[in-house]
């Protein structure tokens, strides 16, 4: 199906599809098995100018938007969302700086992130604060022209591999939700270290580590925006990044569908290719319908968000929840179509099924997405003058 892409957008698709085909597919199983961070691929993506798709040209990027970034993430995700997550997570780390950083912070960090020479990461989650962000314990205390950070962040994607971290810390606990702030911390800052690398069910090529701050001293100009803006920055960042996670889901679903259809055409049982049986046909049809519906929603949302509207939280959440659920379902059914072979590591669908699960959990669980959608519906309808009853 055609989505009326511009020439430039088609080029992004072609280029990322080539990288997925030639560079990612041959190594995805090995990186998954060895839990090895995809530095080779990150280098290729950097040389291909893909890290700065959504970053303005004045900061060394390509001047595109969320949609362009989603197109790239989707194609990479068709081959491996572990690798694509490592790529996309740098964007998640960049958004707080891009959206709320002063010009000096932007000048300093965005060109490095856009070129892919340094990866970024985003640090919010803590042992006691996941869905409930207000539970965070990490503190940042002003000390002259420095801040001193203490605490820890848990399950940080690209942790230990990235060099630039956007992290959330409490600057004034008395102010409650308005007492949190975002900071840039660099690998190598005094008092900043990493915990062990986590062992995961899926996306095992991506690195997940704890960030540990023990009297970590950073210059005060690393504050992003102003003190107290932390929660706003976190929410606005997630609004921007959620379509990217959704794009991972579209890619994963497409990748699983491709394998399932090809397999069903070749696998012969009862003297016929199994695709000739309705039990398989209907399953494949549902997988294809949902994958296309997911893509249509994600593209629409990404394009809408690039038009800079105000009401993005609901649609961003919708794209993430739908594409994540579809990816999980399609990957699970792909394993079913391949039967015993699908359960074995000889085919990539078992990895896709393991990988898909994270899409319903990270960057706000799908339950939290539904909360957001529900709350937004309540707000929207409270403003309506018309009655439907």
């Amino acid at each position, binding site marked *: 199906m055609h989505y009326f892409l511009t020439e*430039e957008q088609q*080029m992004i698709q072609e*280029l990322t599809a080539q990288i997925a085909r030639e560079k990612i597919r041959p190594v995805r199983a090995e990186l998954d098995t060895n839990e090895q961070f995809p530095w080779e691929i990150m280098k290729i993506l950097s040389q291909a100018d*893909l890290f700065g798709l959504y970053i303005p040209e004045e900061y060394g990027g390509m001047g595109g938007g969320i949609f362009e970034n989603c197109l790239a993430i989707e194609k990479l995700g068709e081959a491996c969302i572990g690798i694509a997550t490592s790529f996309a997570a740098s964007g998640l780390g960049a958004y707080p700086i891009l959206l709320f950083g002063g010009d000096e912070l932007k000048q300093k960090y965005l060109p490095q992130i856009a070129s892919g020479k340094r990866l970024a990461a985003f640090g919010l989650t803590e042992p006691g604060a996941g869905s409930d962000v207000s539970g965070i314990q990490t503190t940042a205390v002003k000390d002259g022209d420095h801040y001193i950070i203490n605490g820890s962040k848990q399950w940080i994607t690209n942790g230990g591999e990235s060099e630039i971290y956007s992290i959330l810390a409490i600057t004034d606990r008395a102010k409650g939700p308005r007492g949190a702030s975002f900071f840039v911390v660099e690998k190598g800052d005094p008092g900043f270290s990493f915990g062990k690398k986590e062992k995961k069910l899926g996306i095992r090529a991506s690195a997940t580590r704890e960030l540990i701050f023990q009297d970590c001293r950073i210059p005060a100009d690393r504050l992003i925006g102003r003190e107290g803006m932390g929660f706003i920055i976190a929410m606005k960042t997630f609004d921007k990044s959620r379509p990217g996670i959704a794009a991972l889901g579209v890619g994963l679903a497409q990748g699983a569908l491709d394998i399932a259809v090809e397999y069903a055409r070749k696998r012969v049982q009862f003297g016929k290719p199994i695709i000739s049986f309705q039990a398989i046909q209907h399953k494949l049809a549902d997988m294809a319908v949902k994958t296309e519906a997911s893509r249509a929603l994600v593209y629409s949302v990404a394009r809408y968000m690039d038009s800079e509207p105000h009401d993005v939280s609901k649609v961003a959440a919708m794209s993430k929840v739908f594409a994540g659920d579809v990816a999980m379902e399609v990957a699970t059914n792909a394993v079913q179509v391949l039967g015993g072979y699908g359960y074995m590591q000889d085919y990539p669908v078992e990895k896709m099924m393991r990988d898909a699960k994270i899409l319903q959990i990270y960057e706000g669980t799908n339950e939290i997405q539904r909360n957001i959608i529900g709350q937004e519906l309540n707000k929207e309808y409270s403003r309506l003058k018309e009655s439907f009853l």
Partner: protein
Amino acid sequence: MHIVVCIKQVPDTKNVRIDPDTHTLVRQGVESIINPFDMFAVEAALKIKDQNGARITVITMGPPQASEALRDTLGLGADDAVLLSDRAFAGSDTWATSTTLSAAVRKMGDVDIIFCGKQAIDGDTAQVGPEMAALLDIPYATFVKKIEIPGDGSLKVVRQTDEGTEVWKLPLPCLLTVIKEIGEPRVPSLRHKMRAKKAEIPVWGAADLGLDPDHIGLCGSFTQVVRVFSPPRRTNRIQLEGSLEDQAEQLFQYLKNARIPGL
């Protein structure tokens, strides 16, 4: 430094068929690709550009659609491309091809290094590179796998031979044909791809190159293909297995039983 890379469009051999009647390659409907060894030549040039800075011009002799292959190399980071295209070039053998390509290099004038792949996967002759060097009267090295630039107007290259490796020093300008060990071809970059899409690729014909029609195309070719055929499959092959000593012993016994004179 100005580097010229010579490339060739070849049929994608993964899909090649031989016409059973004419014994020639069926080219209709077969996708063209850049000769894989020429991709290593482009990569070799790009590596030098990355490390030392250089201007890269890619050339090919071929029909108008060959400009798409040139555009692909611009997407990888080459600076310019020139298509050598003229009906008069049709039917060129390696000599006429080398004549045409070297005329283009001469026209550019300021070339320091010429890169070719070690051979093309369709003809497999490996002649065009050395012939160009002969026509341009410059030194050349074939099967190059490593290049160093000492900065004294020369190149230090490592070439692969059947016996091992050789290290050569060549004065500039020179021509090198490269093998895959030079480095895996990179993927394009988005900026280069966008530039390539819009790039104007000049076309030079026989007149632009000042070439005598008798020296190019079919007229300028010393060789003609009389017949193309698949060699008959050899049967009765024996594969020896085991340690080298075992294999030598088996071979000895075999030759002995075969009554080779002197054994």
